[in-house]
């Protein structure tokens, strides 16, 4: 149970596939236009319930409850060894290897 007043992430479909505009590419036409936003939960609910939230600008938004206290998961990704090689290469070309020791 998620309590009223908790900070949550919700999701809803804005347009179903049949409602997509004619000029979008075919792959986009096959999928809905989806929306995610965050706000304060307006009633006790469970994950997956249809809920209402109050956003930072005091708007009411409806959608499916996805997460409580949603966090950022983006990072610096996996190490990319090529970047190290570029760094070594430009230093080598400009300053020379052994001569610069």
């Amino acid at each position, binding site marked *: 149970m998620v309590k009223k007043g908790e900070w949550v992430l919700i999701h809803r479909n*804005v*347009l179903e596939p049949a*409602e*997509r*505009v004619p*000029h*979008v*590419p075919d*792959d*986009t036409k*096959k*999928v*809905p*236009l*989806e*929306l*995610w*936003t*965050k706000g304060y939960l307006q009633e006790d609910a469970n994950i997956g319930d249809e809920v209402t939230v109050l*956003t*930072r*600008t005091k*708007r009411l938004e409806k959608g499916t409850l996805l997460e409580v206290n949603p966090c*950022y*998961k*983006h*990072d*610096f*990704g*996996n*190490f*990319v060894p*090529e*970047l190290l*090689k*570029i*760094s070594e*290469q*430009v*230093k080598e*070309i*400009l300053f020379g290897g052994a001569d610069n020791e």
Partner: protein
Amino acid sequence: MSKDMSYAAVMARRPEIMKNSAGLDFSKFESGSIAFDYERMMKEAGFTIEEIQKIQSEHGVGNTPIIELRNLTALARKIAPEGKGARIFIKDEAANASGSFKARRASTAVYQAKKLGYKGVVTATSGNYGAAVASQAAMYGLKCIVVQECYDSRGVGQPEIIEKARKCEALGAEVVQLSVGPELFYTFLTILEETGYFNASLYTPFAVAGVETLGYEIAMQFREKFGKDPDVVMATNAGGGNLTGTARGLKKAGAQSQIVAASVDLSGLHMASDTQFNRKSFTTGHTGFGMPFSTWPDRSDVPRSAARPLRYIDRYLIVHQGEVFYMTEALASLEGLEKGPAGNTSLTAAFALAQELDQDQTIVVQETEYTGAGKHIQPQLSFARANGIEVKFGDPKDEIPGKNIILPSHPSLIKANDADVIAMRKSLIRNALNNYKVTPTEADIEFLAAETNSSVEFVKETIASL
């Protein structure tokens, strides 16, 4: 009585919603045909340089340093023909309050919103402009909503856009994220209508005028330091406001610098494609925006865009994704500046162009942008690999957008290719005729000559050849 919120009904109310949220009646600049009075729009709705300088200096914007990139210049000279290798400079726009030049654009837009009595601002952007509007709105005590295109239908978000959402939220904004598609505009309109907030569009005269100080500062800073204007000012081009504002500022300072646009080649990828959305490693600064917006500026979220880059472009250079990633790493390793990557598009083109110019000539790359988790070459390349893009060393000319990213195996392989600016000018004229479906008047022909930085003869010849 509740309003009809269906797609068709909201789009039908578009003119009314736009008018109420723009704080500007665009119709008074119209001629009723192709032409409109661009300069009068910029004069009446924009600000003087002095007004903008005051607004910006009070809000953490402007007066950013110009840094000479001595080591990158030396690297260019190592591989350039004898005597070639212009000095490369960069204007450190990441030093603005929100971490990019977009703070300039937001500063005037949000100032205008406050002046007109709006309670909040809404902007539709997946880029640095969102953070810029959020930052300025925070300073003015206005509410702020940023609408982003962020995820594909698998729910996978572009890391760079997710980072920008984080920054907007950190600055107190509400972020509404959408999956891929141009119908974002429908959601944007529903929010404008519901809130009655100001449309802090990137393309109003207020926003574009805010960038004029960037060009003006370059001229003033250069004259103070070197007693002359830069030979070339290089601007990354997407929607066109960056280049337009900078060029206008340079002209207001009386500078004669050549204006060169730069974009990353994303040809072949459809910007509204769900499956191709996460196969591109640049969310801005690319040809997918640069070409359509240059050749038809009035496709934006205002009736008449203040960003009209073909009026100012002398030359347009195209670079590859792999080359920009390489230069971003080189900028960190040789200059100690960790910035970008998208903003380094113009740096990459400058590195190639410097090798054509003499050593006593100068190029100013007119922006940097902040970097961080998601919005950095490492997560972008890592994300590309995770989405099936091959990342390898080789010759960047073999790069195919959406299929591979080719990091140059040697910096001498970094080349900037000229886009056909004359063909782009013809394309703009064709688009104008197709959109308005009128027989062009003399005023239209003069307007199109100004729009394309060409001549009445060129416009007439182009029309005759269509």
